[in-house]
C-alpha cells in the first residue's frame, strides 16, 4: 500500500479518484512529486478510469498542464478514460487560454464526473 503525500487516493466503483492535497501547485519539486505519484498510481495498468479532483487547488502553474497531457496520453493510449472535476474559474482560465478545455474531459463536480464515466 503506497503512501501518497500529494494526493488523496480512493476508489469509487471502478474509478480511481485522486484529490490534490495542495492549494498551490507551483514549483518544480512539487510537480516532480506529483508526477511520480500520479504515474505510480497509474502503474502499468491498462484501461484505467481516473478522476482528478481539483477542489483544493487555488493556484496552478501552466507547467502542470504538461503533466496532465502526459497522463492523458498514457491513459487514452491504454484504452482508459481521464476526467477532471471541481476546477475553480481562475484555474480553468489556464486551460481555456490553451484550448485544453476542449481536449480534457472537465466536469463541474465529482458527481457529474462519475455520472459521465
Amino acid at each position: 500500500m503506497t503512501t501518497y503525500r500529494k494526493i488523496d487516493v480512493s476508489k469509487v466503483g471502478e474509478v480511481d479518484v485522486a484529490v490534490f492535497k495542495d492549494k498551490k501547485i507551483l514549483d518544480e519539486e512539487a510537480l516532480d512529486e506529483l508526477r511520480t505519484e500520479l504515474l505510480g498510481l497509474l502503474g502499468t495498468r491498462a484501461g484505467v478510469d481516473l478522476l482528478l479532483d481539483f477542489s483544493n487547488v487555488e493556484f496552478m502553474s501552466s507547467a502542470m498542464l504538461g503533466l496532465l497531457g502526459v497522463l492523458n496520453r498514457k491513459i487514452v493510449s491504454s484504452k482508459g478514460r481521464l476526467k477532471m472535476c471541481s476546477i475553480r474559474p481562475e484555474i480553468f482560465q489556464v486551460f481555456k487560454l490553451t484550448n485544453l478545455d476542449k481536449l480534457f474531459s472537465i466536469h463541474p463536480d465529482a458527481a457529474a464526473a462519475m455520472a459521465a464515466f
Partner: protein
Amino acid sequence: MTDSTSQRQPSEAPSLRPVDVLLAEDSRIQARMLERVLTRAGHSVRIAGHGGEATALLAERHPDLIISDIEMPQMDGYAFCKAVKTDPATRQIPLILLSTLSDPVDIIRGLDAGADNYVTKPYDPEYLLARMADLLATPLGGDAEEASLEVTLAGQTFKVKAGRQQVLNLLVSTFENAVAKNRELVVVNRDLSLARDELQRTNEELVGLNERISRINSQMTRDLEAAARVQQSLLPDEAVEVPTIDVAWRYVPCQKLAGDFLNVFQLDAEHVGLFVVDVSGHGVPSSLLAVTVGRFLTPKVSDSSLLLRPDGDSVVITSPADVAAQLNDLFQADEFSGLYFTMAYGVLHVPSGRLRYVSAGHPPLVRVAADGSVEVPESRGFPVGFVPGVEFDGQDLSLAAGDRLFLYSDGVPEAMNAQREQFGEEAMVEVLTRHRTDPLDGSVAALLAEVERWCEPEGPLDDVSILGLEWKASGT
C-alpha cells in the same frame, strides 16, 4: 591537633557521628539541596531563611555546627556570624560561611566576623562534609583574648580581631578552596585549548569549502552565460529588408535562460515568416527544448528546417499548420519533463498582405488597423506536444494598408503587479492602439515599458516577447 603542616585530603577525614546542623540560607532550593546532603549523611538539620530566624532557632537549641550563607535579607551572614562569635554561650559552635569568595576582601570580612571556615559556592557535597568533620574534630581556640591583627590587602589596611586557631582554620579552608578552583580552571583551560584547536581546523575547512563553492559557482555562471548566448542565436539576426513592411521586436527573458524565443525573417522573394514560441517551465530544461525547437524553425534551407523544403529546383514554403503538426509529432511532451510549448507562426505574402498562420495554444494575434479598430481572432489549436497526430487549423488574415500585427508571449497579458493582478489583454490592446500613430518600434517599446512599470518593483516573473509587423501596402 596542632600539626598544622599535615596535608590531609578531605577524603581521609574522620567520619562524623550524627550532628545537629543549623543552616541559614535564604534560597529555599539551595537550602533543600544542602539539607538532603546532610540528612543523607545522617545529620539533623534546621533551616532558617535569614539571620534573624537563625538567631531564634539558635536560642531554642544550640546546634553542633552552623552553616550560613552570606547574602541574606534582614541580617546577612557576616552579621549573624559576628553575633554568634561574640556571645560567649555560642562562640564555641563551629560556623562555616558559604560564600562565592569573589572578592579577596571577603576573607577579611569573614575573619572579622569570626568565621571558622569558608566553603565556596558551588561546592562539592563531599567536600563540605569533610570540612565539617575536620572542624568538629579540631577544638576551636578557646582563648577569649583575641589579638587585634593588621593586614594589608589591595592597598588597604584592615584591623581584624581573630584568634590563632580561627586564622589557621580559615586559612586552610580558603587555601583548599583556591587549590580546588585552580585545578578546575586548569581542566577548563585545557578543554578550551582543545576546543580552540578544533575551531581552527573547522575554520580552515570552511575556508577551503568556500573557495570550492566559489569556483563551482563561477563555472556554473560561465556555463549559464554560454547557454544564454546559444539561445540568443535563436533571435532575429538579420534585419528584414522588405520595403513594404516594418518590423520591431522586444525580447526580455526573466532569467539568464528563457523558455521564450521569437524570430522574423524572409522566406523567399515574396514571403516573410514570423513566430513566437513559448516553452513551458523555466530554467535549463525549458531552455534546452527551446534551442532544439529553434533548430527546426530556421529560415535557411537545411536538413532540419521545417519551414522550407527543397522541391526539385525550387523551394516550397511549408504551411504554418503543417509546421505545427510536424513539430507536434517530433516533440510529444516527454514523460519525465512534461515540457510542451505554445506557438504562433505566420507566413505573410507581402505583395497581397495575406497572412496564413497557426496558433497552437498560444495567446491570440492582435491586429491594430490604422483607423484604430482592433481585431483579436480566436486562437485555435492545442499546444504542441499534447495529442500525437493531431491536425492544426490554418487561419487566414488579410492585412489592409497601415495595419499592424502583433505576436507576443503570455508574459505580457499575464504580467503580475505587486497585488498579483494581471496586466490583461485589454490593457495590452489599449497601449498598442494608443500608440498606433507612433513608429512601430516606439509602440512595441511602449508596450514593454508599460509591462515593466506594471510589474514594479519585482519586475516581470515570466519571459516577455513582443513582435510587431506593419504592412505598408504595395508601393508605399
